[in-house]
């Protein structure tokens, strides 16, 4: 945490409400996001219990597993979720842009023109917290290898065909969520943390409702309040039966809720199902009808309690979306969103081409590529955020990596040689203290085209730089390319275009130091992978 965000937290303590950490919105927000509030069954890794999802805040749709240990019901649940999520994801593939580019022909080595498709928009899933992302990743891992009825060897428990497809999409989205600045799968707590500081610690900010209590008075708190008091109420206020008034946003449920509400409801449902089966075996029609009504009632009761456990988080996520939508979008958002659109388009093509699901473990080259991509995107994100947002630039100025000030004098000078080029000196008055030694290269922010300069001298309050480029080809600088006295300039000590990393070999050319070319391994039988 930087000193600037600490300061914002201190101010939030004093004001007892959230304070801005950004002047613009740094993440893309879709016009049609899908919100998911997933719940996991306790005690078992990645076992689903329920999910509340939808694209319309007034129409959340609940899916749940009536008996979390029953694998048939789990399969049905996953298929139902897949039937909601996959059509949503695929709907973004309908509209494409055609981009002309060129590709090297592998045989002749010549460049040949190609036309590629790029989806005009991409889907966006929003979950309450980082735990929700991790849960979706586990669901993806546990379902993408599932065998279906269409497989040559469907196994003992074939799952509906949509289930492995959902698994592949969830794996792709959770993988993409690791890329800095990507926006296809977002956690609301992370989104809020990027844009506002609260008067509590990072750790407490992971609780979505407690974090939101620094923005809006929580529903149900009388009298309405904000800040630490409201956050504590959300975290710990319980009713007469010991149940939290504001249930946590998942994926873990409150143990007391499991004990007092969920376990009895599941038990009643199990009992009703057992009665129905017994009656069915005894061919007692009247009893079957009566038991079916019992099952229906128990099912409705489970739906009611699970809705009550997810609905508050559902509203919290949408309230967070409202807060973020009120911020103006940052200038570089379309650029980064295009990266997400490419990611979506390429995965869609892989699925359409019938490629196998993502492997359990990446081979060396794929892993290195992913890592290099994440590093590159991180560098790009930091630069773009600094350029888009004076508050992000202030972080860099505080760290001595940039300085801003007023041009108080411009001294025209020229380079030596046969065709002299303009090399004007700028005297900048600044209160910043950049780590600027004479001769150090600096870059002028917001210059079009890019403009380099070097430090000539640096003293407290005044920095002299010499412009080196971006002034045209003639002897005299292009009009407007040299800042006028009295104008405000920002120079950065870091480069404004991220460096490209060295190319990586094709997976087939993996050097022996990294295990050599990947060997196709037979996947373990799917049965070993499934829940019991």
């Amino acid at each position: 945490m930087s000193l600037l965000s600490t300061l914002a937290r201190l101010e939030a303590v004093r004001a007892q409400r959230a304070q801005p950490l950004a002047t613009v919105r740094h993440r893309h927000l879709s016009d049609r996001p899908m919100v998911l509030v997933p719940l996991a069954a306790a005690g078992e890794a990645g076992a689903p219990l329920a999910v509340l999802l939808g694209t319309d805040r007034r129409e959340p749709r609940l899916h749940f597993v009536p008996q979390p240990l029953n694998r048939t019901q789990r399969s049905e649940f996953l298929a139902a979720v897949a039937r909601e999520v996959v059509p949503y994801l695929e709907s973004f593939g309908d509209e494409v842009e055609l981009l002309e580019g060129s590709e090297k022909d592998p045989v002749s080595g010549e460049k040949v023109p190609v036309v590629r498709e790029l989806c005009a928009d991409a889907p966006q899933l929003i979950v309450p917290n980082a735990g929700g992302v991790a849960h979706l990743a586990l669901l993806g891992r546990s379902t993408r290898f599932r065998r279906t009825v269409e497989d040559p060897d469907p196994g003992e428990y074939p799952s509906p065909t949509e289930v492995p497809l959902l698994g592949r999409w969830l794996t792709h989205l959770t993988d993409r969520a690791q890329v800095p600045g990507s926006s296809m799968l977002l956690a609301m707590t992370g989104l809020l943390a990027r844009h506002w500081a609260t008067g509590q610690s990072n750790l407490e900010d992971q609780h979505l409702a407690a974090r939101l209590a620094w923005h809006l008075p929580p529903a149900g708190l009388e009298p309405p309040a904000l800040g630490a008091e409201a956050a504590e109420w959300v975290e710990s206020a319980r009713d007469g039966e010991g149940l939290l008034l504001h249930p946590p946003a998942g994926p873990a449920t409150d143990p007391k809720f499991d004990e007092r509400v969920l376990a009895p409801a599941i038990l009643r449902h199990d009992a009703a199902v057992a009665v129905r089966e017994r009656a069915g075996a005894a061919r007692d029609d009247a009893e079957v009808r009566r038991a079916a009504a019992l099952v229906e009632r128990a099912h409705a009761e489970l739906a009611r309690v699970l809705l009550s456990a997810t609905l508050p988080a559902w509203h919290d996520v949408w309230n967070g979306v409202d807060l973020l939508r009120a911020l103006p979008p940052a200038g570089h958002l379309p650029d980064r969103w295009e990266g997400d659109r490419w990611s979506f388009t390429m995965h869609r093509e892989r699925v359409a081409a019938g490629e196998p699901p993502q492997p359990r473990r990446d081979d060396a080259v794929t892993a290195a590529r992913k890592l290099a991509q994440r590093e590159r995107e991180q560098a790009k994100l930091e630069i773009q955020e600094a350029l888009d947002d004076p508050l992000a630039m202030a972080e860099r100025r505080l760290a001595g990596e940039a300085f801003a000030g007023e041009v108080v004098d411009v001294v025209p000078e020229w380079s030596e040689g046969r065709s002299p080029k303009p090399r004007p000196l700028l005297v900048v008055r600044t209160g910043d203290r950049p780590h600027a030694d004479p001769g150090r290269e600096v870059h002028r922010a917001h210059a079009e085209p890019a403009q380099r300069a070097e430090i000539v001298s640096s003293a407290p309050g005044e920095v002299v730089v010499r412009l080196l480029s971006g002034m045209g080809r003639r002897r005299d600088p292009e009009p407007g390319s040299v800042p006028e006295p009295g104008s405000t300039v920002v120079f950065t000590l870091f480069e404004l275009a991220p460096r490209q990393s060295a190319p990586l070999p094709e997976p087939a050319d993996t050097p022996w130091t990294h295990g050599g070319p990947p060997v196709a391994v037979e996947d373990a039988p799917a049965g070993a992978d499934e829940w019991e």
Partner: protein
Amino acid sequence: MNVSHLGQATPPLRRLSELRGPAPQRSLDARALAALAANPGCRRRALLDAAGVDKVALAQRLGRPAPFGQSPFAIRRGLLFESRLKRDGYAVLLEPLRRRLGVPAEEVSSLAVPDLLPAASPAVRAERTAAALAEAAADPSAWTLLDHPLLRLDVAGSPAYLEPDALVVHAGRCTVVEIKSFPVLDGSADPANVGAAARQAAVYVLALQEAAARRAGLPLSEDPYAVQELPGAPELTVLLVCPKDFSAQPVAVPVDVRRELAVTRRQLSRMTRIEQLLAALPEGVTFDLARDGSGAPTRPAGELAEAVAAVPAAYAPECISTCELGFHCRSQARCAGAVEQLGRGVRGELGSLRTVEEALAAAEPGAAAGPEPEPAGGSGPDEASGRLAYAARLRAEALGGVR
């Protein structure tokens, strides 16, 4: 639990039992010890744990109950998992151990599981465990499994009882077995979970090392990485047993805990001695809840809060997830305006500025300049204040358009 098994009730022990009142003593488990070792500067927790005070009931009475609990589903799943483990004569445990120790798999050996008197008092159980361990270590060819043994460890001068999930004894040495519910997925597990399990197991290894040294009449080696060559001494690699992938199939993975062991030893030795904590305590302080006949506490919450406040705490936001009194200490830190409420790192960043008000005052325009000019290369409080004022100026400038 009475204290007579621990020899004579020495003055510190008597004072500790006074602090607790007539309530039964809560024994420290390894999880609590690992939490204590993570925050060794907290005198409040050290004293309450040493006295065996029921912190759950205390927090409840103070009006900010601890949010901890375990779901019945998790408990059921845990029991199912442990029963899987016991199938086929603990084959899951023995197989990786055999491989590590180089014992041929075909060697026929039956596993002895001695009765460790699970219903007895802690002191008796600890004695029984020590005897069973010595007996098992005496026969190098035998395989013995101690199911939920009880170990004793002296922490800052007061005894703590620890209950590992199991110990496997073979060839005169023992291996700690730690059973966890998080999965090993595609050959790797969540590092945060593994780290917590390793810290917990390191506490058991330390207790076993001290016990082995005590039996041999030798002091514990100065070097925390040294392997003890004593009968019944623990291996420095523990067995972590977890479900494999998404199944309930157990898989055992060896985990080296030497680093965690060294950290735990250092942290526990840094803890202030209980005698010193007791000496600093005002006369008449007690954490007795004064339960009435029905077991309901009658002690006024205000009086109890005063008693708790007599022992200083070292609050950090991490406490909320590890300590029963976390919420109570947080509300105190908030009332006092302490900067620790925002995180441990914040305090380092702000130097000698200890409260939110002080820090915000230093950030006010003109505050840093002060009556005297800042000395060049200023350090100490001036530097933190100066940087804060600079940060405040930058922040105000950047937000100029927003506000």
